[in-house]
């Protein structure tokens, strides 16, 4: 939904970077990325979008007040964005200096978390913009890639059963987050990965072993994740690296009861189910888990401070293994590893070599990181047969700007 009204400098399909708000992204030398913005860009609220807003948008991501694992996307920049204002070369041009060669930066800049938003109000530039009517979006004629075909999108928030019923009755054309078993979900990579982060000194050295013995990832995805999900048997999802079968160790002998707190994102319903499942299964191994639902900002703040026992995190990984590895390392809290892990990968000449090295490092690092991969989800979007031109980008984000409806099925208002 965020992608309806915001967009980044570019779109990345895994191989090629397609400029969006940027007119051109180039490299004058291997340690500088030059970005030339399109002219006359304006946010949905009418404010102009210049190189200053882009630098400020990047700086917001990495500043301590808004801790986010996505800051790893900008890790290769020299000074990690501390000198964001110095990047601005002109009103429509920026130059990003790199600390080490990192050819993946252009792809990373296309990540949705680096969508450019206005400093005040958070307005962005997307194919749609919020309409006056609540929960309605209207096509944005100023979208750089052209005006979307549908004039308007009307959103209805409901539960899975009601959504399925509405879809079956033809009352909605698109249903996000459900699968009726008949219409195939929108094909897209499962890059929305969920991990269990833990504090080793609080949960004990044998926690990973206990967890692996208690939890069956296949059961977890089959029983508790109705939307398209795949078990994560490696640090990175199957779309980025071949799953490594994780051996399920024998159940350790029960020790004294250990009380822990598992925090999760209360805005994600599947987090609750997964947290409760972990609670039930670890209970058998004498872990007494108290569940603590938090808002996303609280969750991120707790994560950044390191003051937690167990925490469920979901992050959208980019369709490139090196950058995904950087995000996973950042999420694990081992920020210092980025300095040693990323330069060797960036030094590889070809994308294939960088991917291969990233996968190899991901497999090697998994036992060291206080992070347990659980599952990865793709966006599940059911579209009625009348909807044409619908596709998802390589992030798995649906692109509704190219979708269209056959005229006889459109409502009089064109919704």
């Amino acid at each position: 939904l965020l992608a309806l009204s915001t967009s980044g400098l570019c779109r990345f399909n895994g191989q090629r970077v397609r400029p969006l708000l940027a007119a051109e992204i180039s490299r004058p030398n291997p340690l500088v990325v030059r970005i030339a913005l399109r002219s006359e860009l304006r946010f949905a609220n009418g404010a102009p979008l210049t190189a200053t807003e882009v630098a400020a948008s990047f700086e917001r991501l990495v500043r301590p007040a808004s801790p986010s694992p996505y800051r790893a996307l900008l890790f290769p920049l020299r000074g990690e964005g501390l000198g964001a204002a110095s990047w601005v070369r002109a009103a429509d041009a920026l130059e990003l200096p790199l600390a080490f060669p990192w050819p993946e930066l252009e792809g990373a800049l296309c990540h949705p978390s680096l969508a450019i938003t206005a400093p005040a109000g958070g307005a962005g530039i997307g194919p749609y913009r919020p309409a006056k009517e609540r929960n309605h979006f209207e096509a944005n004629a100023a979208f750089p890639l052209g005006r979307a075909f549908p004039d308007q999108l009307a959103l209805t928030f409901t539960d899975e059963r009601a959504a399925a019923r509405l879809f079956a009755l033809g009352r909605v054309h698109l249903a996000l987050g459900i699968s009726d078993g008949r219409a195939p979900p929108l094909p897209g990579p499962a890059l929305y990965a969920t991990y269990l982060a833990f504090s080793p000194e609080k949960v004990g050295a044998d926690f990973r072993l206990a967890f692996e013995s208690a939890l069956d990832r296949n059961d977890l995805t089959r029983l508790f994740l109705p939307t398209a999900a795949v078990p994560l048997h490696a640090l990175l999802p199957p779309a980025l690296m071949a799953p490594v079968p994780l051996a399920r160790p024998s159940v350790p002998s029960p020790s004294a009861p250990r009380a822990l707190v598992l925090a999760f994102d209360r805005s994600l319903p599947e987090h609750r189910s997964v947290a409760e499942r972990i609670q039930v299964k670890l209970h058998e191994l004498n872990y007494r888990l108290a569940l603590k639902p938090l808002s996303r900002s609280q969750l991120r703040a707790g994560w950044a401070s390191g003051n937690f026992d167990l925490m469920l995190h979901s992050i959208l990984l980019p369709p490139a293994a090196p950058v995904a590895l950087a995000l996973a390392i950042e999420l694990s809290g081992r920020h210092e590893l980025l300095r040693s892990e990323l330069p060797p990968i960036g030094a590889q000449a070809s994308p294939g070599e960088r991917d291969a090295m990233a996968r190899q490092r991901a497999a090697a690092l998994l036992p060291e990181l206080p992070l347990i991969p659980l599952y990865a989800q793709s966006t599940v979007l059911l579209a009625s047969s009348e909807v044409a031109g619908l596709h998802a980008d390589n992030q798995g984000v649906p692109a509704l700007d190219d979708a269209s409806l056959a005229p006889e099925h459109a409502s009089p208002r064109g919704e």
Partner: protein
Amino acid sequence: MMRLRTRLALAFALVAGAAFALVAPLSLNTLRQALSRELEARMDHAASVSKDLIAQRAEAAEKAIDELSKSVALEEFAREVYSRVPAAKLLSSAERLMTVRGLSVLSLLDERGVTLSSGHLPTRLGDPDPTLFEITRAPPKTAPPTAVELRGEAGLQRKPALVTARSLDYGELRIWVVGGLLLDQSFAEQLSRMTGTRVEILSTEGPPAAAGTAEPPTLERLFDLGPVARIKVVLSRAPALAAERALERAFAVLAGLGLGLAILLGAIVSRWITRPVEALTDAARRIASGEFELAVREKASGEVGELVSAFNRMSLELRKTTQQLVGAERVAAWQEVARRLAHEIKNPLTPIRMSLETLLAASRSGDPRFEALFKESAAAVLEEVERLGRIVDEFSQFARLPKPQLSRVDLAELVRQVLTFQAAPSQGIEIQRELQPGVLVRADRDQLVQVLLNLLKNAEQALTGGGRIRVRVEGKAGKALLRVDDSGPGIPAENRPRIFEPYFTTKEGGSGLGLAIARRICQEHGGELGLMSEHQPGWGTTFVLELPREFEQPPTESASNREELSP
């Protein structure tokens, strides 16, 4: 010594206190027993209500599970299982079925006991639940208390529930419906409301479900719900104790008032009773001191009244008898004085008569020795007349002793002057002095000198063959003592009681009035003259003159020092 009045008042208080001491414990004990019985009755009632409520819950659970097992909704669920819909689709099925039926526990199990869907713990999905599956083997139509795992604040916790099971066969598929009602907070609240007690449901894990309050101290009773839980009913004993305390306070106040009243009444009554007795005691004391002219005027009845009358009669009789006795004694004394005076006068009369008769006979016969006889007889008569005159003077002195002219006299000083200037000892007599200075008396100095000279004269007369005389002055608290000892043979025991009687003497030519006069002088000064009863080794007779002591200033330690003087 405690007065009779006080004793009577205390006796009244003791009687009242004893009555309270008997009544209060008995009453309090009776009250305690009644309150205890009432608490026991309430506790029995709570137990009965608990059992009824549990039975009602079990019945409600059975009804709900029975209805569910026959419902279309469960059949629909069975169809979904049978048609192998994704298991995730069944995640919340049991929860919906559970909620609409008001159940708090529901698990849908397959024939192996694996959870197809769980309402109370949805994420049990796919796992076996042996605890609930065991219920399917329980006797039908029962809802035994079972420990059910639920999500608590700190992980899973086992909580007591009344759980029953029914089965549904769908083709070759068998689905077990296992569910019931938790004995949770709502149950505790309901039971607490119905019994008016604090109720705690104690399970094997986690904090108890509790409702109601019970101010300590409390009375508790536990009811077992099999091995899974216990119900604790807590009754406050505070109201009962408050009632007990109130009664104790009332008793204390009553006891205080009663004791106060008893003491007051005792004081009044004892005063009423003892006033005549005290009047009698006072009168007796005054009569003993010689005050015969009185009668007890207190009004009294009964025995005390008779006692007062008898006392007054006795007092009157005593007064009469005493007057008669005094009169008789006075007559006897004067008779004795007259007898002795007559005897004394008679003694010189005999030689006078004989001299005169001799002269008369010589005159009649013309005896030539008449002249010589006349001279001799006249001399004898004159001597006897002189003796008579002396007797009359001394008697007159005894009878008309002048009124003492009182002044402050230092006894030691007085003794020293008398011994120096007026009482030179005879040959062979040694006088010793032990004079404590500063012993003052208020006395007529001349009369006191007369007494001392008399005592010294007596002592000297007792020392016919020489000896020692010791004069001692000693001051004591309120008394001044003058002692005169002699080393003579002492006074025979038979004469000791009579030596102060007038005209009693053992000495040739003595008048017998010296000691009588000396004693009278002492008595006129408020003192006494006596003979020391104890014998002192080396000393024969000791006269002790005791007078009231005068003080210039309060007596000091140094005042008791004695002056040791050589003879």
